[in-house]
Structure formats: structure tokens, C-alpha cells
């Protein structure tokens, strides 16, 4: 297949890549843009490790193709912290001890951030629904749920101040 040129935004930076149109966004991010924080656990939309925000919606980047990317906006795990300042979600996951091997964590953070951006006060059920597509084999999830709850609180508090 002939290569095409696509231009889109990643973590607020405009990028242009020359690629086969059927190359998964996951590979474009990891191979062409060297953003290896987005992980691959299946390539078939089953694990959620490759979750990114595409135009402010979560998607499995293994199921989105380069040919669909023109003009769109992507946020990956590398775009979550503000310089050295971690996002409250990242802080909470560390504090609650919710990170084990860490392989699922970038995807979990993206899904949880999407939730908190849209719902400042999610209950446990909403948190679980938002993370239903992100498999984690290490933690048993309970510390992840706690971390999302405590970061939601933190974000609300800092918004109040």
C-alpha cells in the first residue's frame, strides 16, 4: 500500500507522519513518534493497554488507523503530567499503591482522566464502568478504584480553592 502523509496533534503538538494508511495509531505513536508509553497487550481491542484520548474520547489506539487521523487530536500518557508536576490521578495511583507491573497503568490513567474530565464526582459504579475495558492482571483493581476516588476529591478541592 502506498504511504500517505497525515498531520494531526499529539499532546498539543502538531505532527506529520508518512505512513501506510492502515497502520494502527498505536504503531504510529510507538514507532514513528517514539511515544512508547502507550502499551500493546493484544492489538485486537481486548485489553485497553493502548487507550488514548482521540478528540477527547477514549479509544483503543490499536483499532484506529493512520488514514483516519488527519486533523485530529490525540492525548497519550506522555501528555498527562504538566512538566514535572504529576496529574492528581498519577499521584493518587502512586500513593494508594495501585501500581504493580505498570503495564496497564497508562491505559487506566487515560480512561480515568476521561471520566474525571466529564464527571467530577463519580461513584464506584461509574468508575468501574469507565475502566471496564482496561484489564489489569496484577492489582485486583481495588486500589485503582480508591486512587480514582481520592484523585477526584483532590481535583475538586483544588478547584474550590
Amino acid at each position, binding site marked *: 500500500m502506498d504511504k500517505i502523509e497525515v498531520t494531526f496533534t499529539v499532546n498539543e503538538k502538531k505532527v506529520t507522519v508518512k505512513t*501506510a494508511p492502515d497502520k494502527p495509531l498505536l*504503531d504510529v505513536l*510507538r514507532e514513528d513518534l*517514539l*511515544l*512508547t*508509553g*502507550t*502499551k*500493546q*497487550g*493484544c*492489538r*485486537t481491542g*481486548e*485489553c485497553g*493497554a493502548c487507550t488514548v484520548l482521540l478528540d477527547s474520547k477514549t479509544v483503543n489506539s490499536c483499532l484506529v488507523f493512520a488514514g483516519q487521523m488527519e486533523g485530529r487530536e490525540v492525548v*497519550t*500518557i*506522555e501528555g*498527562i*503530567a504538566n512538566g514535572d508536576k*504529576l496529574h492528581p490521578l*498519577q499521584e493518587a*495511583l*502512586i*500513593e*494508594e*499503591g*495501585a*501500581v*504493580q*507491573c*505498570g*503495564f*496497564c*497503568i*497508562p491505559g487506566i*490513567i487515560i480512561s480515568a482522566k476521561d471520566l474525571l474530565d466529564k464527571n467530577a464526582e463519580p461513584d464506584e459504579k461509574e468508575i*468501574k*464502568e469507565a*475502566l*471496564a*475495558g*482496561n*484489564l*489489569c*492482571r*496484577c*492489582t*485486583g*483493581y*481495588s*486500589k*485503582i*478504584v480508591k486512587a480514582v476516588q481520592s484523585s477526584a476529591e483532590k481535583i475538586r478541592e483544588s478547584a474550590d480553592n
Partner: protein
Amino acid sequence: MPSVGVNEIKVDAIEKVTGKSKYVDDLHFSGQLHCKVVFSRVARGKIESIDTSEALRIDGVVDVITVDDVPGNNMTHIIYDDYPLFADGEVKFAGQIVAVVLGETPESADMGRDAVSITYEEEKPVLTIQEGIAPGAPLIYSGDNIFKRYRIVKGDFKKAFEEADIIIENEYYTGYQEHAYIETQGMMAVPGHDGSMIVYGAMQCPFYVHDMVSKVLNLPASKVRIVQTVTGGAFGGKEDVPSLVASVAAVAAYKTGRPCKLMLHRNEDIISTSKRHPAWMKYRTAADKEGNILGIDVDFYMDAGAYATLSPVVLWRGTVHALGPYRCENVRVRTYAVATNKVPCGAFRGFGSPQIIFASEAQMDILAEKVGKDPFEIRKQNALNLGEETITGQKLNQSFGLHKVMDEAFEKSGWAEKRPMWGFEHGEGDIRKGIGVSSIFYGVGLGAGGKNMAKAGAFVQIYGDGSLSFAVGTTDMGQGMRTVLSQIASDEMGIPIEEIYCQSTDTSRIPDSGPTVASRATTMSGNAIIDACTQIKERMAVMAARILEAKPDELEFEDGKVFVRRIPDIFILFKDLAKRCAMEKVHMTAQGWFDTPFVSYNEENGQGWAYFVYAYACNVAEITIDLKTGEITVDRITAAHDVGKAINPQLVEGQIEGGSLQGMGYGVMEDILHDEKGRIVNTGLSTYIIPSIIDAPEMVPIIVEEEFPEGPYGAKGFGEQPLMGVAPAIACAVAHATGAHPDRTPMIPERILEWIEKKGG
């Protein structure tokens, strides 16, 4: 401020939450090639031909590698020497490595893989334990398809059964379990300009990898270096298999002279890598009318798959754990690892014990019912006491938290209130709630089955600025070893954890420290670090004594200072001491070493001091069942674990919660299925279902600390046992809710309905 016992944040957490951690697939070397494996689609047969000509014509395909390209031993050594790295003339399971295509890009390697054409003379595969041991079965291994057998004989089991008031006799089956680590297996082999080879990758046991790579390449071990990359979960699945993956990548790198990356995709990982052994158990229990166990007679068969790999040692652990932590004087246990034409099974959290524990705990539930007692009570009544003997004749004489974990789980689960209120007899419509228990013990470390590997080293170095780095031979695959060992180093030298850096595990830095399995990293490497730190402190103390005008043996290292005991005002800052030592060339590095305490085992009768210490756990599971549909929901798991000492309680809780959920998956949802030709059919995560966050029950982790005097700070290691007792506790709850006793895992709705129906009939 001591660090041990504190919830220090994970030393590698920041890079993990920012996406900076480098797992093997994140490595990139210029000029790298991509490997794509051609797996056998046939479970048993002769290879007639391998035609690579089409593949080699594809743009970007550089080479295709087969058994003919292996420079050294193609027959690999794990425990036996029976597993060919590349299939050599025949295949014994679907998913076996036949060839590897090397491409300039992953896409070209993919196309090349599809273009390789292999023809087989197919033979009928052996797909079950029963087929494997049937007289006249096609031979997969040696004379009888049995890789290994063990037996335990103690007391007079025949007499016990003659004298028993109650005899309970049942058969049990447990299914496969796939590790389903979210990071699939992968390796990057990088050839050196001087004939050396470095392999980076996801692994638990770098020294196994080292050994296999050097033999496969026929390179001196000194020219091989293995580096563990950040590893995305393992659970036993990255114990022996990474040696094979690394060796394949290394052969490719050796032949082409270019860095070669081999990443297995999920479906490839599922068809070709190890799993938990399915098992078939015939379990007889003799008891008196009070419900005291008098004797057991157990036959335990594991489906080992096509090659022995780790099955002999997995079988050994299962054998020793054939009865839970209960008293029993009269024992016969016979165990077998049986060859079949399926993917070789291997290590998985619990290592041969979850299968047999499922059966032995189910027997306890039936015994309780027979004598009209509560399942908790029957377990308490039979539970070993301090000083009593296991079925291998080992006296449990220290760090014995069994009764404490049982009492805690009883209390915190609310057993006394829930058990009488719930159950089949209580409830409306089709919905029933059930509560069930299991109590288990777990031999920590390799035990007598692996005592020659039971040693570990550590390298510790203090720098002139007062910081410390250390390297160990065990690995962190997410469980938090780097953090726990940093805490130990921090307390040993009396400096803050921020001053400590744990190097990545690399076989060029540290002597062979055995595998990271069997919950041994904390005890083994922890003790080796303590040894190294002690040596360095002795040397630094001489200098400090000179400065402080004190005697070296009066000095304490604490709070970033070195001071005279009882006169803490006389001190020097550790940083200043380190600087001074560096200037005056005091030797501030040391190799630490730890040998396992005594263990023994007699293969004739299965008697001996099998493990140096045991960890204990009690699980209570609460479930809801729909009697109409068989649908089961696990609502809550209370898990009390005696860990000796929790160096980092939060990490211990993480192990309990994660292990419990894996145990739940094993109990109620996970299984590998084959078609009639022996090929795995559920090769993805939408068909091999593991628990998602929606399935996750409420967890109540409870830490009990009965210190183990020979462990670092009293810790005894326990990463595996959280999984082991969960399926049995769920089975006990299912029996409570339905009145029918499960005899199989996973306890899926169809089976639950079957059990209910059988009980009714």
C-alpha cells in the same frame, strides 16, 4: 526513621505512571530486525518439508531460521533435556516453534510468516491425562508417558481406612489457567562486535536465560549477558519460557549479526507458552465420627503437555501440599506428571498446589457436612498446632500463624452471623447467598525440591556522596521487590530510601542467584543485602571509630548518622563518613550471599524437612448465585495472610488483592479449550476471559505477622499464596448456597446447574 514496615511509595512508580518505563518492546536498536515465529498448527506429527522460498522472495524478509541454523544445542535443558528449541523433524504440540522469519519491519516479517509452507504427516494426538496413561497410548515420553512420579507414605493408611467411621471418596478436575500478564513475552538480542551476546527482556529468571542462550549459541557463558527489562507481570509465566524466547532471538541475532526483536502477540503467547496444569485427582479421606481426619489416600495426575519443562518440580510442590495445614498420621499420596500433545504446562502462582488444595479443601467441606459441623469448625478442629507434623513429617516449630489467620478471617468476615442466615435453605426466589472458607499453608522458597539453586547474591556499593546502589539476582515483575529490598538496604545502612538505587537485574553484575519464583526474592535477596551491608559497615565503622574516638563495635548506623550507642551526641553524618572513606580508599563495596537454611526430602517415602518455613492463609468468600441460571457473583473476599513481617504493608495488600482476584478467575471463569485436533481455541482476551474491574469483588486483606527469625526483619515471603485458597473458599460457598459440592474448576454456570440437578436427583 526506619523504612521497614512503612508504606514507602514504590521506587519505580513515577516512571510507570508517566509512561517512561522501558519494557522490552519499548527498546529500539538501530538496524534491528523483527522476528515472527512460524508455529506448528499440528499437535502431533512428522515434519515432511519446510519451504521458505516464497517467504524469502518477499520484500523486507531477510532470512528464515530453522533448526539447521542453531549453532549449539537445539535440545534445551530446563529440568530434563527433552525440549527442542526448534522442532526437529517432528512436532509434539500445536504451538511449537518450527521456524522464524526475520523482517526489516514487523509487517514484512508477518507476510513472510504467512508465506512459509510446512507439510506434516499428521498423527492422532494424545489430548487428555486418561489417554496419556492408557495402555498402548502413543508414546510422547519415554516408556509410559509419565515425566515424573512422587509418593508420600506415612503411618498405615490402610488401617486408618479400615478403622474409619467415615470414608469420603471423590474425583476432582481442575482446568487450565493462562497467566494473561498484560505484557506478552518478548526479547531483544543484541550481538556484540566481539562475539558476545546481550539479551534484554521480560523475565523472572535471568540465570536460566543465561544458561540456555549460551548453550544454544555454543558461546562461553562469560560472553553472554542477560538484562531484565521492566517486566509487565509474570506470575510464573516468565519463569522458564523466556529462556526459549531469548534463545530464538539470540540465534537470529547470531546468524544475521543484527539486533533482533521477538515479541509474541497475544494469540501467539497463548498458544505457545506455559499454563497452569490441568489436574485429575482421586481423593479418599478417612475420618472418625467427630470429623477428625485419620487418613488420606490420594492419586494426583497433572497434564504436563508435550515436554517436561518444570513439571517435575511443580508436581513435587503439589505432592507436599496434598493435604492442607491439617493433622493426619496415615498418608498415601501418589502423584504423576503425564505427557500429552499440548503446550507444556509450567509454573503459575501456587505451582502445583492450587489443584490439589481444591480437592483437599472440598473433602473438608463434605466431611463437615457428614458430621454436621460448620466448615470453619471442622478446619479449626483439624488444623495443625505448633510443634505438630505435616504429612511429610516436618514439625512446624516456628513462625506459625495458622490459627491467627483463621481467627482473623472468621472475625472480619462476619462468618458467625452470615453462615447461619445464608445458604440454600435461606433466601427468596432463585437467589441465594453463600459463604465459604479455606485454610492453606504454603512452603516458602524452593524447598528440598530445588535446594541446589537455593542461594542468592547481592552487590552493594556506597559512593563518596553517601548514596548507595545495589544489584541482586532476583527480579521485580511488578510485585515490588525493588522497593522492598531498597527498604531493607535503607534500614541496614541507616540512610533514607531516596539515597538508594536498585540496579536492573543483569547477569554480569551478580553471581547466579537462582530463579525468582516460589516467593523467595524478599527472603533470599534481602538476606544477601543484609550480609553485604554488614561487611561494608564493618569497614566504615573502623574509620568512624577513629574519627569519633570510639570502638567500632560501639557504633550504630541510623537516621543518616553513625553514632556511639548510648551517647548519640557523638556522631558523624553518614554522608561525611562516606566522603572521608572514599578519600581514604576504604573499600565500600561488598558481595553479599545467602544460603537457604536446611531442607531435606526422601524420595522413597516422601518424608523430610520439605521447606524451611511455611506461610499461612485463611480465605472467606461471599457469593451470590442464581439457582435458575447458575450465574455466580463473588461479592467479597476476606483474605488473612501470615507473612512473617510486612516490610511494606501496602505492597503486601496489593499482592493479596491481586492474587485473590487471579484465584477468583481460576475458580469461576478461566479455562483453556482445545479443538479435537489439540489446538487451543480461545486465543484472545475476549475468549479467554480474565476478571475485569466489573467482576472484582470487595477485598478485605488482613496481614498477620508471625516473625520468621531467619528472614530479613522477620519476613518470609508470600507472593503466591493469595491465589491458592480462593477457588476452594468459593467452592465451599457454592456448596453453602446450592447444597451441591463442586468437583471441578472453573465453576461456571453450566456446571453449577449440573451440580444442582445431580444433587436433586
